[in-house]
């Protein structure tokens, strides 16, 4: 029996010639990461267990991105805790305010992950790096502590759903619309415990930023990982970032899938997920009149340069509607600089947007844009659970940067075509 892409990477890292779905294995890790919320718990567990070494100081990343720049005294203490640990163990990839970016934008940008590698992170959106053909998945803090010490993790080998992408996306449709469409189709547990493997002739129309956005939200369908077949787009992206050897794994022709789902990209419309689950999707044209008070453009899902370019293209020459607060958060310092040098900041500022330093901030209701009771936001983020961005009686609508920018101008859920 053949193997899926994910199974091949797992087998290679378990030192086995083959694995099959359901098998429990121990694998070698290429990278272990955590953030300022999950790392403190991992560090406590690491110390409590009496560990006194890390497996490789160059293959651990500690990224202070969630409640930074430190939002309060407790958050500051958590970061200090991480900083001290990083110093003690001479962790190479420790990133703090001034260098930091939202972890899942920063790690690929720095070349810390390559095709065929195996990554765990104490953050559920670690699945983002599947966009580069890596097996990467979110774990908890105890797994992170074990990973930092041993360089190993245990896994149950997942089965997979294969998504064959065909056709070319139209107009303003981006990776965000595609993944929201897919989650709407299969549900928030539609891929529970499984891999989502993306392939097909439509891949070539999806940029690396589209793919990072789609793999990022695999967890919102319950998946263990989302992974894209490596192609020229991937290789072009990693070529000046990764300067170590890596392997490209393709699924076997006779790989077994639980399901094969064909997605015609040309049929997908700009899509929005209504509260309070990412599966509550509908095309923007069917959204009706939903008045909003806030727009957030950023996050590990959609805070990359292409996202900001799209938002700027929609916002250029327009004003954010009176009564709407539009917050733009470039995901990394590099993206921030590039957006600034391209003149995107001028467009955002002219439109009346606030521009923030890189942070996860409002996405998880941390800071920098919390919602009051009864308020609604359109956000390019990844979750719209009850209370996710603030008050339990506030609402988050998930959408692409184009839809978010159009909504900011119109003061209600809208797409660029609706702007008058």
């Amino acid at each position, binding site marked *: 029996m053949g193997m899926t892409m994910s199974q091949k990477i797992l087998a290679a890292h378990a030192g086995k010639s083959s694995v099959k779905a359901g098998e429990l294995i121990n694998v070698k890790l290429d990278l272990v990461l955590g953030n300022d919320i*999950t790392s*403190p718990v991992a560090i406590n*567990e690491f110390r*409590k*267990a009496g560990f006194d070494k890390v497996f490789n100081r160059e293959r651990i990343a500690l990224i202070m991105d969630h409640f930074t720049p430190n939002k309060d005294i407790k958050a500051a203490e958590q970061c200090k805790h991480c900083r001290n640990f990083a110093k003690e163990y001479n962790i190479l990839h420790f990133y703090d305010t001034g260098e930091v970016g939202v972890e899942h934008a920063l790690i690929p940008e720095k070349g810390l992950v390559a095709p065929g590698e195996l990554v765990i992170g104490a953050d559920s959106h670690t699945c983002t790096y599947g966009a580069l053909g890596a097996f990467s998945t979110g774990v*908890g803090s105890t797994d992170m502590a074990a990973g930092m010490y041993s360089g190993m993790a245990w896994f149950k080998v997942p089965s997979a759903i294969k998504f064959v992408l065909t056709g070319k996306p139209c107009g303003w449709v981006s990776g965000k619309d595609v993944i929201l469409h897919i989650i709407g189709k299969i549900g928030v547990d539609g891929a529970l415990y499984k891999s989502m493997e993306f392939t097909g002739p439509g891949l070539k129309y999806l940029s690396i930023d589209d793919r990072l956005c789609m793999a990022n939200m695999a967890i919102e369908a319950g998946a263990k990982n989302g992974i894209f077949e490596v192609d020229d787009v991937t290789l072009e992206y990693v070529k000046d970032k990764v300067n170590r050897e890596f392997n490209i794994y393709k699924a076997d022709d006779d790989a077994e899938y639980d399901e094969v789902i064909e997605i015609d990209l040309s049929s997908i419309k700009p899509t929005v997920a209504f509260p309070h689950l990412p599966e509550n999707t509908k095309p923007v044209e069917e959204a009706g009149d939903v008045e909003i008070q806030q727009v957030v453009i950023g996050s590990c899902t959609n805070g990359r340069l292409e996202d900001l370019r799209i938002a700027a293209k929609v916002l250029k020459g327009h004003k954010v509607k009176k009564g709407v607060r539009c917050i733009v958060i470039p995901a990394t310092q590099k993206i921030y600089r590039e957006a600034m040098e391209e003149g995107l900041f001028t467009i955002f500022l002219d439109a009346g947007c606030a521009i923030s330093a890189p942070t996860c901030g409002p996405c998880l209701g941390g800071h920098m844009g919390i919602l009051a009771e009864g308020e609604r936001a359109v956000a390019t983020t990844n979750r719209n659970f009850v209370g996710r961005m603030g008050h339990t009686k506030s609402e988050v609508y998930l959408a692409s940067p184009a839809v978010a920018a159009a909504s900011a101008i119109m003061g209600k859920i809208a797409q660029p075509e609706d702007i008058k």
Partner: protein
Amino acid sequence: MKAQGKVFKYKDNVDTDVIIPARYLNTSDPKELAAHCMEDIDPDFVKNVKAGDIIVAGNNFGCGSSREHAPLAIKTAGVSCVIANTFARIFYRNAINIGLAIIECPEAVANINAGDDVTVDFDSGTITNNTTGKTFKTNPFPDFIKKIIDEGGLLNSIKNK
């Protein structure tokens, strides 16, 4: 080993943001976390829960974030076991890693109501609804996972190697 207590019942897709909202994640102190457990879905939970009580829920319990603070808050609040149709995968491994008992058993979920008194016998894999007298059989953990639990969690099991 046995667990016994009163049932708090919830529906599908109970996410980690309602189990422990992110606004409380500026601490990793288990007691502080437990004080806000389930706050956004059931504000009275912390007031009513007693040591040994059991959470019963539908599909995909613990979906969303990887925060280990979620099973930690539930465990520290006194909950002895969570029974659900299915668990989100990160929550599942976090619970095992920190020693919170979890069981997937759709038959039990369908036949247990809020407020019922339930006993779980982990050795025999039996769930008994003491209120109705019905019993349900669960699948035991694979040996690989049982070993982690028996050795007192993942980090101890690694240290013992």
